């Protein structure tokens, strides 16, 4: 176990090194920020002074060295637009994004798994067929589109839900979150459904496929002849063995959920780190882009690591080596 974790940690560092190099090279190619910061009538001296102040006049390897050194101490430089530390800007917006992701994950588990279990147990039923068609429709929809449709229908046409923003933020267990207020829930409903939609479909399909395979196994026949109740047979016996791939996908999907918050947050003007990234890209705010990518990279690598370890607990058959 210890060896396994140590080996994974080394791999983790390699990945982070590769990502940091790529991020650095690509962000230094990305538009020259100097011209974005200055007036159009700036003199060459002013341009030179700003270039120097940002350290952009040094050779690239030196810049990379500085970049890594600073990154290790959590310093990605100041945002060109906000004039604040890039990392702290991201951290500040993290809770808003996380609560969105949290509600989306909850939705996909609560809706996706039970639907998948029942559809998989009765693959020829009408329910199963409609679940399958709906889930294909779900993964075929651009997520921004479903967001727009909901905004139009629920906010503009029916006037039920607020169009954008995070709503009132309350304090729950010492954490400032919109989930603590009714107004916050009204605001988070549409963004989280938008975010969860593709995920629900994936989870549903995966659970269904796993159930279908498991229901043909001997242990199910045995449990059935033993007289285990239908509910326990499906949700106890069969689901347990189906869950292994589902948990992996949950881990992987967590990453893509975070990636897709960029879109959801843009549509609903949700003040999270996804919107921050898109705004930063549009204004060539390099430090924020670099900090975001590396921050998210660390997050993903960490998630993968945790999923790998979870594996072992769920499925004792898996050999660590």
């Amino acid at each position: 176990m210890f060896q396994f974790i140590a080996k994974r940690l080394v791999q983790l560092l390699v990945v982070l090194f590769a990502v940091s190099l790529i991020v650095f090279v690509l962000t230094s190619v990305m538009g020259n920020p100097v011209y974005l910061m200055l007036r159009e009538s700036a003199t060459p001296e002013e341009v030179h002074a700003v270039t120097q102040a940002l350290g952009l006049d040094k050779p690239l390897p030196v810049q990379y060295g500085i970049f890594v050194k600073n990154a290790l101490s959590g310093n990605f430089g100041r945002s060109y637009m906000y004039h604040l530390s890039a990392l702290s800007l991201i951290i500040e917006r993290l809770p808003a994004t996380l609560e969105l992701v949290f509600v989306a994950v909850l939705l996909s588990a609560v809706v996706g798994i039970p639907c998948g279990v029942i559809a998989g147990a009765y693959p020829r039923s009408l329910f199963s067929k409609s679940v399958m068609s709906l889930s294909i429709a779900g993964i075929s929809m651009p997520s921004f589109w479903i967001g727009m449709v909901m905004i139009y229908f629920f906010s503009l046409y029916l006037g039920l839900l607020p169009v954008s923003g995070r709503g009132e933020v309350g304090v729950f267990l010492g954490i400032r979150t919109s989930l603590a207020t009714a107004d916050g829930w009204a605001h988070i409903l549409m963004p989280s459904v938008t975010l969860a939609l593709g995920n629900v479909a994936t989870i549903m399909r995966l659970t269904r496929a796993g159930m279908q395979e498991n229901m043909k196994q001997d242990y199910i026949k045995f449990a059935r002849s033993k007289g285990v109740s239908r509910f326990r047979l499906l949700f106890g016996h069969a689901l347990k063995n189906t869950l292994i791939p589902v948990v992996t996908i949950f881990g992987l999907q967590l990453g893509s959920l975070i990636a897709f918050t960029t879109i959801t947050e843009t549509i609903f003007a949700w003040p999270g780190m996804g919107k921050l990234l898109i705004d930063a890209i549009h204004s060539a705010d390099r430090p924020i882009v670099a900090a975001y990518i590396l921050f998210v990279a660390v997050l993903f690598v960490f998630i993968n690591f945790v999923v790998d370890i979870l594996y072992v607990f769920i499925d004792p058959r898996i050999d660590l080596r």
Partner: protein
Amino acid sequence: MTHVQRGNFWRVLAASEGWSRFKRSKLALTGAVIVVFVTLVALVGPFLVVQNPYDLSALQLGDAYKPPIWSEGGTMPFILGTDQQGRDMLSAIVYGSRVSLFIGVAGTLLASALGITLGLISGYYGGRIDALIMRIADIQLSFPSMLIALFLMSVLGRGVANILLSLTLVGWVRYARTVRGETLSVKKSEYIEATRVIGLPDARVLRRHILPNVFASIIVLSTIQVGSFILTEATLSFLGLGVPITRPSLGMLCNDGFSVLYSGLWWVSILPGLYIMIIVFGINLLGDFLRDEMNPRLR
């Protein structure tokens, strides 16, 4: 796998079990009908619509803000209404679908070319080159492809060529992995050994003897990939990081229309998005059927 002679192909296909399952599957048929329909629209649609949406001189501001004909205030010939510049939405959608479909198909061809090549090399030669390619694939797979594409586009800037490059760099991994896996298992078969015995060059073995055997999975993968690339492109364009505004794809039309959604002009943004969904839905229905066909365990 039975060897099919060229002339017999259609007859064999028509008599096959897969074909009869296809004819019985309502979902697969629906998918096929949609795919044929959107392809036809993209090919002949421009000759049928009332205006060329790229020709700014054809637009009249007096025609702006017209709703679709089924709602109050809608007039012919603007069946799906017009946008804030007086552009006919139906024409814009037809032209936009050409951009979206082109990017989806071309991106898939490029990504598959790169992925198949690397996968064949990786699986056939093994060793260090295999380890290197697969490590890169592993690292890439630990990040959502949407995020990688987003990041690449933010560096490269808008443009069709840049989108194709991003999609290629994002999409090759799945091909490489699948092809590598199948190459590994095909490599052990006796007829590949035979090609070695008679001393065929590697390139020929790969192209003529291994590639045809992994083709089935490539077809399945590519079908789904076209759909997913169309969605990726739409999303990038919606975020303003995709195609340029001069030749809008469907996603770009949504982006353009989103600003007027709040003033109640829903058709400008929601209709192009609906068409994206129809296209991708059709492709996914077909892809799903093909995947189930290739996986005998579920049959």
